[in-house]
């Protein structure tokens, strides 16, 4: 679905992503992991056309991303940024409704309303639908932003650290929703810092270090003590508990 070729991205004059070739495929949940400053968020922003490439190419279904009209792209691709700040005083339902803007131009149809309701329910927000964003907690606001991104019903869903501020039950819920989107054919890419969560939910893991791909492959190949210890420059253990990989710091 999204494919990069020798992608380089600069932020504020400094190049932070170097020469990356990767594919975010449909029907698969791709996790981007790596230490702080590895370029995960910048890479994701570039995949979501929020930051233009300094060199190389990004293609969405074979078309150069910059050549796709923005409204068109917004129907096919949705991105949630980390620490997104919403200044206007909106209710949770209003915010999620704006996710339908690319499809309806803001005049919500019955179908749009159904989608908004489903997305609210998916993120356990039904009871909070009428509350204003400035009166809900950080985790609730984060869920509202995720719901808004989901309401775009994109083919490519890009989430940057969506689990920030979330409690355990909602971590599970968000990852389950992301998986469900992947299983129904969407291409999903998620920046994650919890390696255990990545190993558990991802089909494909891309590990970044210093702006380059350090390792990539299915969780079984990437989530190993050798690769992760080298990735983070610190000893890490990987244990099998009931058939699931758990990553521990020593």
């Amino acid at each position, binding site marked *: 679905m999204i494919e990069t070729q020798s992608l380089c991205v600069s932020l504020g004059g400094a190049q932070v992503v170097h020469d990356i070739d990767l594919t975010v495929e449909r029907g698969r949940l791709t996790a981007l992991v790596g230490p702080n400053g590895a370029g995960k968020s910048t890479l994701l*922003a570039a995949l*979501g*056309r*929020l930051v233009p490439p300094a060199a190389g190419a990004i293609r969405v279904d074979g078309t150069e991303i910059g050549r796709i009209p*923005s*409204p*068109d*792209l*917004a*129907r096919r691709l*949705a*991105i949630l*940024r980390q620490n*997104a*700040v*919403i*200044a*206007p*005083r*909106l*209710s949770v339902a*209003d915010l999620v409704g*704006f*996710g339908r*803007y*690319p499809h309806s*131009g*803001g005049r919500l149809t019955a179908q749009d309303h159904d989608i908004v309701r489903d997305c609210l329910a998916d993120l356990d927000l039904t009871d909070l639908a009428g*509350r*204003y964003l*400035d*009166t809900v907690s950080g985790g609730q606001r984060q869920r509202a932003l995720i719901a808004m*991104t989901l309401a*775009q019903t994109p083919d490519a869903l890009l989430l940057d650290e969506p689990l920030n501020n979330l409690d355990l039950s909602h971590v599970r819920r968000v990852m389950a929703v992301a998986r469900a989107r992947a299983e129904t054919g969407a291409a999903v890419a998620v920046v994650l810092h919890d390696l255990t969560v990545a190993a558990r939910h991802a089909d494909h893991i891309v590990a970044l270090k210093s702006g380059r791909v350090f390792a990539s492959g299915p969780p079984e190949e990437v989530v190993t003590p050798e690769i992760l210890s080298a990735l983070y420059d610190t000893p890490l253990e990987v244990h099998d508990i009931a058939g699931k990989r758990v990553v521990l710091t020593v």
Partner: protein
Amino acid sequence: MTSTPAALCGLLALSLVSLAVGVGTLSADAEGLWLVAISRAPRTAAALLTGAGLAVAGVIMQMLARNRFVEPATAGTGQAAGLGLVAITLLAPAAALWLKMAGATAAALIGTAGFLALVRRLPPEAPLLVPLTGIVYGGILGAATTFLAFERDLMQYIDIWMNGEFSGVMLGRYEFLWISGALTALAFAYARRFTIAGMGEEASTGLGLDYRRIMALGLAIVSIVTAVTVVTVGLVPFVGLVVPNIVSRMRGDNLAATLPLVALSGAGLVLACDILGRVLRYPFEVPVGTILGVLGAAVFLWLLHARPARG
């Protein structure tokens, strides 16, 4: 949205009062009708158009600056319009009104764009620096205007332009305000897009909105409405600040739903203050700008220190 019809009714009542209140006594004969047609009705219309335009311009500016404490009259747009007006008056004293209007609009555009560029450089974690910068920026532009005007003996005009007043409004002297009315109506069509712009550039792009284009449109509406107001009736402070903030506390910022209430409340506020100005020191008039200066500053202080709205 029960309060929009209520606001509409209130506005109608205020308009009737406005038609009735003034120095001349109304009578049911031809002379009375003439007074209404030539003076009272235009004055009422001018107050309504000014209020609605400035309130909507205020809310748009708050979305563009992503800060709820800015408005055109206190963040440089009005002062820039005044500066442009003085500049045109100095360069071409005999210029037609529309030319002065164009000069004021151009200056307001540049001034507002300058403010938004300045604001982008402020740290996002200190939002109150934005209105602060706006007030000082407006003050500097005002100082430049005063400097020019002082030297060329234009001070009496400055007084007229910088302190809004409707006592001079008559048939044939306020019609430019309908431009402001038309732009206010145009803003309704773009209400959703302005709300999205208020979410920031990345969120706008993410939703497929051309952020630059909506910024440019908003800038144009804010600048033209403000410039037209300054040229026609003078600067009216705080409408664009007080009205959107109070509506936002009650109903939020989903402009598609709240913009009508913002426009109606702005129109009502300015008209009410104008009526107050007519009766406060009858038969003399207190300019609406003076009354709103007091009222608006007081409400601003309350907004600054009030707890955030709940619910």
